[in-house]
Every structure is written in C-alpha cells, then in structure tokens.
C-alpha cells in the first residue's frame, strides 16, 4: 500500500505562529488527527495538457507591451524526497510586479500597477520533472503585520504532485535578501536548514545572455514509504 512519509519535526511551519498575526484567529486550536493514507489521499487530479495554455510559463508576454523591471528566468526540478523526478505536475505561480504591487483589489500599497504585468503563470513539469518560468523580479512591499514590516521579494508557488497528499503551496525567495531575517512567514519554519530550501540560487546555467538572469528553485515533495509503518 502506497503511503507518503511524514515530515521530520520542525521542518514545516506550525499552524499557530504568533509573530505572523493572521495565524492567531485562523489556526485551528485542536490537535490534528493523523489521517491514514487511503486511496483518497494517494490519488490526485491529473491535469491534461489542454488545461494549461502553452505560453502561460512566460509572464512577460501576456500583454501588448513588456512589463517593467528586471527580467528573470526561474527554473528547477520537481522531485520527491528520494530524488525521483515528478513529471507532469501542474505548477502555478503568482507574484507582485517590479514595484511591489499585486494586481489585486485588496492591495492598497502606494506603488504603481504595471499595465503589462498580471503576475500569474502556469506550467506542467516535463518528463524529468523540470519546469521553467520567465518573469520579472518582484519588488518587496510593506504589510501591516508589525511596525515597518516589509515582505522579502518572493514568488508564490503552488504544486500538485501525484496525489492529494503531496499538494504543496510555498514561496520562493531570492538569495541575499536582507529582509529574510525579519520576515515572520519565512521564519515560521523552525529548522534553519529547512527554511533555507525556500531560497532560490542564482544560476549561470539558466541565465540567458542578453535576455534574463536565471534563478534555480528545486521543489521537493514527500517521499513514498515502502513499509506500512508511519514514521
């Protein structure tokens, strides 16, 4: 029977993390009940190619003109904990524009919208689990979590993987961002080596001459457990 491994202690955020104020009224207070992995958890949606528009990986080509900002390529591999590629998985991203503003009615930050940038992309991983987006480096932006709070630059990632149990939503950060040390969302992951996996790596191999700097962000989904024992 296929099962997925449980995460090692403190490598995932706690639901209640008081420095992140929004978690206080929204995190459940009762203990979670461990769900056995049945067919309901080990299956998941399979998105056919016709669902994802072929050019949806390029966030700089969704409008008449080019968006402002620093053009970047973000690529990586989707793997499981045993290093196996996860092919044909839907990957969705969304982000602020170069000025740090989201195209969203709830974002009231006094920074300009860019008529040539929506900030949304999708793709499917290939047979080797690889994905690639072309986009604009998002700006940092203020939020009201605490005095003078600024989110580090980040891109939101949503990944399905092969099963309901492997669904993951996370955020990709940029190397050397001085705001990371002060960000309660990034720092909600207790183990430092675990949260550092959220930071992309500058990558010459995907940097395209005259076009775009490249950043590599590999995403690891849960590994399978061969034995029926839960860890």
């Amino acid at each position, binding site marked *: 029977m296929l099962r997925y491994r449980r995460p090692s202690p403190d490598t995932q*955020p706690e639901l209640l993390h008081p420095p992140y104020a929004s978690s206080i009224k929204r995190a459940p207070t*009762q203990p979670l*009940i461990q*769900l056995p992995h*049945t067919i309901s958890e080990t299956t998941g949606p399979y998105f056919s190619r016709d669902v994802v528009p072929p050019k949806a990986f390029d966030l700089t080509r969704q409008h008449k003109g080019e968006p402002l900002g620093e053009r970047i390529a973000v690529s990586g591999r989707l793997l499981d904990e045993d290093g196996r590629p996860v092919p044909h998985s839907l990957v969705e991203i969304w982000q602020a524009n170069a000025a740090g503003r989201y*195209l969203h009615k709830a974002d009231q930050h006094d920074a300009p919208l860019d008529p040539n940038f929506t900030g949304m992309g999708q793709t499917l991983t290939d047979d080797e689990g690889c994905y690639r987006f072309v986009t604009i480096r998002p700006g940092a932006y203020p939020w009201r979590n605490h005095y003078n709070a600024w989110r580090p630059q980040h891109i939101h990632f949503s990944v399905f993987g092969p099963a309901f149990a492997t669904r993951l*939503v996370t955020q990709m950060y940029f190397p050397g961002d001085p705001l990371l040390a002060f960000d309660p969302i990034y720092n909600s992951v207790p183990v430092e080596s675990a949260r550092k996996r959220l930071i992309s790596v500058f990558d010459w191999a995907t940097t395209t001459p005259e076009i775009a700097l490249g950043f590599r962000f590999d995403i690891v*989904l849960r590994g399978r457990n061969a034995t029926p024992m839960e860890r």
Partner: protein
Amino acid sequence: MSGETTPSQTVGPYFSIGFDWLNRSDLTHGASGGERVTIRGRILDGEGKPVPDACLELWQADTSGKYAQPENAKGKSQDQDFFGFGRIPTNEHGEFSFTTIKPGSVPGPDGCSQAPHIQITVFMRGLLRRLVTRLYFPDDAAHATDHVLNLVPAERRATLIARPVATEPQILEWDIRLQGKDETVFFDC
C-alpha cells in the same frame, strides 16, 4: 535522497491572482449518472467572523467509487470523464458553494470500505500550511464503520457531516469553523 520536503508557506492575501483561472465549482461534467448535490456553507474564524479570502480544493471519487486516474485521462480533454477536482473561493461574505455528484464508497484500510466522502483542502491568508478535512454525507449507516470517522472523538464527528436542508432536497449545508466551539476536525494528512 534529494533532501526533505520543501516547507509550506501561506498563500497570502492575493492568491486569487494565481488561482482563479482554475476555479471550478461545478464538478458534474462528464459524470454518468449519480446523485447531484449542491453543498454550501461558510468559513468562520476564531471570532466567528466569515473569512472572505479563503479557497477550498476538493478531490473525490465518482458515483461508483472510482477516482479519476492518470492512465485513463491521457490524451483526453479535461471534461470528457468525471474529474473529481474542484477549486472554490469564498465570497466577500465568507460563503462557498459547489455542485457535484455524491461519490460512491471507496476502499479503506484493512479491506473495509469508507463511507462516501469528499477530500477538502483549505487555503487562506494566515494558514502557513493548508488545512485538510473531509466532508461526509448525512444519514449514512456506513459512518459507524468508517475507519477515519472512528479516529475522531465521537463528540466532534458531527463537524465533518453535512446537514440536509429541510425544504431543498438537493442541498446540503456544511460550515468550516477554524476555532472555538464546534471547531471543525482537521487532519494531519
């Protein structure tokens, strides 16, 4: 080993930018028969306030208890067969609604079958990880032997079971309470 699972982070307040393209509140496409049902409810926070910036994702079997499988889906368009996936944002009043086909029972642990249920993921600002819960259907004798329901303390099981609406036979109501009295049961998936 390539390391451990990437940590989860919140979807934040602006996830609709990335999620809306795949919103799907009518799951009945491609279904061959089965009992059509609409499920509606609200998501409420620890102060009982509706959550207007949440999103549910659903995963369920078809009326015969079969989950859509990749090997059957290849080369087909998405609505040719029953798909079983839904994505539904809450509105400004914290309400959600979706229409589907009641799933059949599916195999459970130890060779038992599970009572019909829908797998639910909840995303919102403030949740650093997704929440996982299940929705069961009212008045089902199979609840008594359902392996997962029996893991839940008896006094909390009702939070997982949708309620019929007296005047509207095809409608069920089911609220998600994040905290407090009648806090919904959430699972470590």
